């Protein structure tokens, strides 16, 4: 399937999802759906770097929070429409991703992973000490009750996240099937050999970090309007990092569909578990599933199905 038909089909599926959600006439569907879609974006974004190039990013929460705090910053300064905020958030977190990658990606892979973990702590320290965006007390972002055409504001947020998810998935799939994607795969399989064969590995890794970081920031931009009150410990929560790693790992990291399956599956399980059991238990569930899957099914759910036809080598 080419990219354009795929885009159109994705948009059609998104439209169907939105219509069904509206027909249910229950605001909870939008609140829960928003969270699941947010995880689809985060997992897909993580997979662009983690799955395609094999570099583990533990700092999803940092990029997500960058996006969220970009919104808070502009909300205090001069409220902008959400689509514009998403673009700004993408620029900010993409640049931070680029800078971080530039400092650490020349070294062994594990240094990058450690640096991303530390990045989350440091950004949190900066935000806690920055009073303009609320500091450690947090910031209120009151969402408007109504929006023209759609009516309720949560439906508007849901629609935005739905479109972001489509954008992320289409981007991931396009990368996978382009020269860029083959370049990423060579880095994952054998970086030294790739370098020797003339693949510009550092450049490719930086591109992957930037795209991945930008999408994480975009997922975070509408978040303050969704949650209403943003504080550092919720924006930088470890659950974002764990989920965005667990979802692709459980779904399968080799293709774009893996993170989507993982995100929808885990996202729905968590929504159900949060309502029926407790939020601490559902986090435990994610952790246990992650460990069980990496130990027992290294290629995730997609790896459980044998390939029907063998792909020709790139």
């Amino acid at each position, binding site marked *: 399937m080419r990219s354009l038909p795929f885009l159109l089909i994705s948009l059609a599926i998104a439209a169907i999802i939105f219509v069904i959600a509206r027909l249910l006439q229950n605001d909870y569907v939008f609140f829960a759906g928003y969270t699941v879609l947010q995880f689809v974006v985060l997992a897909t974004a993580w997979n662009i770097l983690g799955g395609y190039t*094999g570099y583990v990013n533990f700092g999803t929460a940092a990029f997500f929070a960058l996006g969220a705090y970009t919104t808070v910053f502009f909300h205090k300064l001069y409220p902008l429409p959400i689509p514009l905020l998403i673009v700004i958030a993408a620029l900010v977190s993409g640049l931070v991703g680029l800078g971080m990658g530039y400092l650490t990606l020349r070294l062994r892979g594990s240094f990058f992973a450690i640096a991303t973990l*530390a990045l989350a702590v440091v950004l949190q*320290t*900066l935000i806690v000490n920055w009073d303009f965006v609320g500091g*450690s007390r947090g910031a209120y972002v009151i969402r408007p009750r109504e929006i023209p055409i759609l009516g309720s504001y949560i439906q508007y947020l849901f629609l935005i996240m739905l479109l972001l998810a489509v954008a992320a998935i289409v981007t991931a799939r396009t990368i996978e099937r382009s020269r860029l994607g083959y370049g990423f795969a060579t880095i994952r399989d054998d970086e030294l050999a790739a370098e020797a064969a003339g693949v510009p590995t550092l450049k490719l890794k930086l591109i992957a970090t930037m795209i991945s970081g930008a999408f994480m920031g975009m997922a975070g931009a509408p978040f303050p309007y969704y949650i209403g009150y943003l504080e550092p410990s919720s924006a930088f929560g470890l659950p974002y990092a764990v989920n965005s790693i667990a979802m692709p*790992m459980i779904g399968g990291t080799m293709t774009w569909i893996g993170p989507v399956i993982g995100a929808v599956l885990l996202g729905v399980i968590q929504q159900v578990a949060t309502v029926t059991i407790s939020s601490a238990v559902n986090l435990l569930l*994610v*952790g246990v599933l*992650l460990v069980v899957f990496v130990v027992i099914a290294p290629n995730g759910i997609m790896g459980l199905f044998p390939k029907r036809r063998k792909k020709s080598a790139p």
Partner: protein
Amino acid sequence: MLVSYDLVLNALIAGILLGGFYAAVTVGISIAFGILDIVNIAHPAFIILGSYIAYLVNSQFGLDPILTSIIALPVFYVLGAMVYQVYYLSFERRGQDALRGLAFFFGLLFITEVLLILVFGVDYRYVTAAYIDWPPLHLGVIDIPMRMLIPCLISLALLGTLQLFLSRTFTGRAIMAVAQDQLALKLMAANPIRIKRIAFGISIATAAMAGAFLIVIQPVEPSIGREYIGRVFAICVLGGLGSLPGTLIAAMLLGIVESFTATFYGPSWAPAVSFGILLLTLAVRPAGILGR
């Protein structure tokens, strides 16, 4: 800004004491990451586990937290050996330790933290011991709080013992060798997997003691371990991978820098220091101070 001499001197002493404690926190990572090349990011979680065991025994039986941790050493050693066995069978043997191994340890970190929250809640816990309440030592203008001094001294003893073990015994030398040449090690009639298992067991065992030090120094809650991830790796990389003397020097340096930051800019800035040092080291001298 006018800076008083007393304040600087006290910040320096506090930094050295803090550094001694950081050395105990990092020594496990120096062995696991520096020598064995296992990126055990769950190490801080094991430290917090050590803190809670010290807390549990202390609150139930009134036993000294550090003494408890010494008794808990074999338990943590076995735990570490078991974790390594799973890691070896699932990742190292299959040669896919990079991506999935990291995810495995990250999952462990998360599971430990959530389990501790489920069992103990998110309240801060603390221990009681005679020396915690002793008045600080006064040496002229310097104040030395006992709750910092005792962990620091025992930590130095721990590092000294480990350094002797690594440089003088056959097993210790085999651990240092396992990172360099596994085949040569086999020719010396030592099984590399067994040696690595022992080393990883020791690495996790140090977490029991570091955990006890932590809860003596400050109250502990489950998610506090995350603050130490940046610190331990910063110290480990700064000191030079796999070098215990380097670890000690780097720990002291970080302790002093953090102490000065906390004294002159406020304690809420301290966590950012380690990251700055980590990035600077990676950019300028990735081999660290005493690196090969």
